[in-house]
């Protein structure tokens, strides 16, 4: 899967980052194809932000090969910059500006990089509508709520119609409604605009919903790389079947839930009630992976997923 080709947007090989004597990234490998949504998971301090910042060209790596849109980010000029979008964890910048004015001004920087295939920047009003800030278009940025502010950050990140978008914890502080809308936006960007998206999050439910592929970063290495479904199946193929019969509750773990349930009904028929089949969630997988890693068997964790690299996605 790590064959650099026409469609490879990100290609990272043996990426290493050392701060003083502290090795944060100890050989990270992964790649992303055009239009893919990659979600990077990992415990705090695992190096997610460092990885993203290296790909964004904001941080110099210690060693390894990195290619983003066919260019080493360290060498990325303004033309390269115009093809990427970065959603920053903003704070209080441009507090005196109005939403629309700021988007329009930042958007203009992309005008020289417009192509017939990809006209840049986005129409400001359409963009404002896309992120749901219509009512705040002429509001001063200092008056926005936390969630509105975050949506503005997303709008700024995509104003230049990036081919590759970096999102570092984009939905921190979103209410459920805003989160849902954000997910729709991500789908729209990857489906309609063929935007490749790399995002980090701590919300595993979100990762499951958005990711074409999930990467788990632990101990400075990618310990898992595959679709959410593949990852969970690889940790455990067993499902929990729960039911009740004559007021009594039962739980059974099985690798083949369908057969088990069929037999269950054949045996007890109408007596079966409250049937529930639960597969391992991404959360279970994540916990298992990180635990395996932190309990001192990182290689087991990494090995368990080597097979995924070759799996038939």
């Amino acid at each position, binding site marked *: 899967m790590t064959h650099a080709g026409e469609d490879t947007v990100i290609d990272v090989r043996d990426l290493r980052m050392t701060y003083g004597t502290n090795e944060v990234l100890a050989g990270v490998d992964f790649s992303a194809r055009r239009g893919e949504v990659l979600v990077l998971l990992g415990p705090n301090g695992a190096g997610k932000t460092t990885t993203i910042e290296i790909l964004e060209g*904001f941080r110099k790596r210690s060693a390894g090969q990195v290619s983003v849109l066919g260019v080493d980010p360290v060498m990325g000029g303004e033309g390269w910059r115009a093809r990427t979008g970065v959603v920053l964890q903003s*704070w209080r910048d441009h507090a005196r500006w109005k939403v629309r004015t700021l988007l329009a*001004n930042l958007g203009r920087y992309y005008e020289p990089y417009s192509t017939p295939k990809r006209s840049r920047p986005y129409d400001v009003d359409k963009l404002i509508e896309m992120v749901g800030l219509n009512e705040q278009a002429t509001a001063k940025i200092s008056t926005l709520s936390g969630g509105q502010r975050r949506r503005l950050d997303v709008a700024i990140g995509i104003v230049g119609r990036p081919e590759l978008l970096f999102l570092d914890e984009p939905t921190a502080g979103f209410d459920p409604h805003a989160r849902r809308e954000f997910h729709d936006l991500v789908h729209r960007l990857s489906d309609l605009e063929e935007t490749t998206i790399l995002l980090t999050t701590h919300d595993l439910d979100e990762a499951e919903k958005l990711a074409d592929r999930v990467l788990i970063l632990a101990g400075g290495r990618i310990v898992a790389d595959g679709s959410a479904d593949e990852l969970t199946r690889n940790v455990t193929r067993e499902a929990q079947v729960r039911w009740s019969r004559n007021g009594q509750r039962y739980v059974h773990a099985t690798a083949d839930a369908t057969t088990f349930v069929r037999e269950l009904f054949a045996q007890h028929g109408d007596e079966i009630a409250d049937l529930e089949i639960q597969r391992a969630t991404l959360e279970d997988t994540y916990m298992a992976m990180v635990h395996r890693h932190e309990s001192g068997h990182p290689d087991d964790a990494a090995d368990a997923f080597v097979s995924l690299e070759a799996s038939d996605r």
Partner: protein
Amino acid sequence: MNPTTHAIRVGLSRGWIEFTNSLRSPQDIGFYVFVALGTLLYLFLNRHDDWSGLPYPSVVLPSILGALIAFGAYIGPMYSLAIEREDGTLLRAKAVPGGMTGYVAGQALFQCLGALPLLVVIVVPSLFLFEVLAERGTVAWLIVIGIAALGLLAVLPIGMIVGSLIKGPNKIGTWGMLPMIVMFGTSGIFYPVQELWGWVQAIVQVLPVYWLGLGMRSALLPADAAAAELGGSWRIWEMVGVLGLWAVVGLVIAPVVLRRVARRLSGSAVEAGRHEAMQRLQ
């Protein structure tokens, strides 16, 4: 369309927006009014004094204009850079194509325009309060604007460089204000520079503030007032030379320093700055 000139154009419109935002900000307006009232009150209380045969306000006002321009051009970009590096404005600029170029262009325009309201709120009332100034013609005021522009070019880069080097807005007091107070005190604004020790005079004449004040006096005072200056002359060429030299050196060094700062910017650096600021507030 050339990307660099385009970025400068976008940056200039950024500077203009910053300026209009500033004109709508009660804080900024309050600052202008406060400085203007302070200056006018000081001059008014001393209106009957005399400075080498001329009324005190008419000699001191041009010097103060020069000093205020220097002050704004030094402190303004310093504050902007120290704050905007920490709050993420600069990082945003770095994340868009040509953003840093645009940011610098915007800052330059914004800080230059920022000197205007201050000049207006001080000069206009002065014309009515102090007769000597009202006698000066349009040419004199055009020269004032020219010298102001040159002075801005000389001092702005210094403010940008110092602002890039200091860590966080809380250090501005030490690195920003102290040198400024010393420069003001010794630049022949409040009393003639000739009354200071020789070595101080030498240092003062290397710095731009003195020359800005001298330039303003040369434009606004009668020709024979030059007799009260060092060397008994307005030393126009020296003034243009010193200010010009500062401008050239500054405009060469400032981009280098800014690029260095920009290279170090990252989301986590901004996050760390935010963390520090939060602790300051607690």
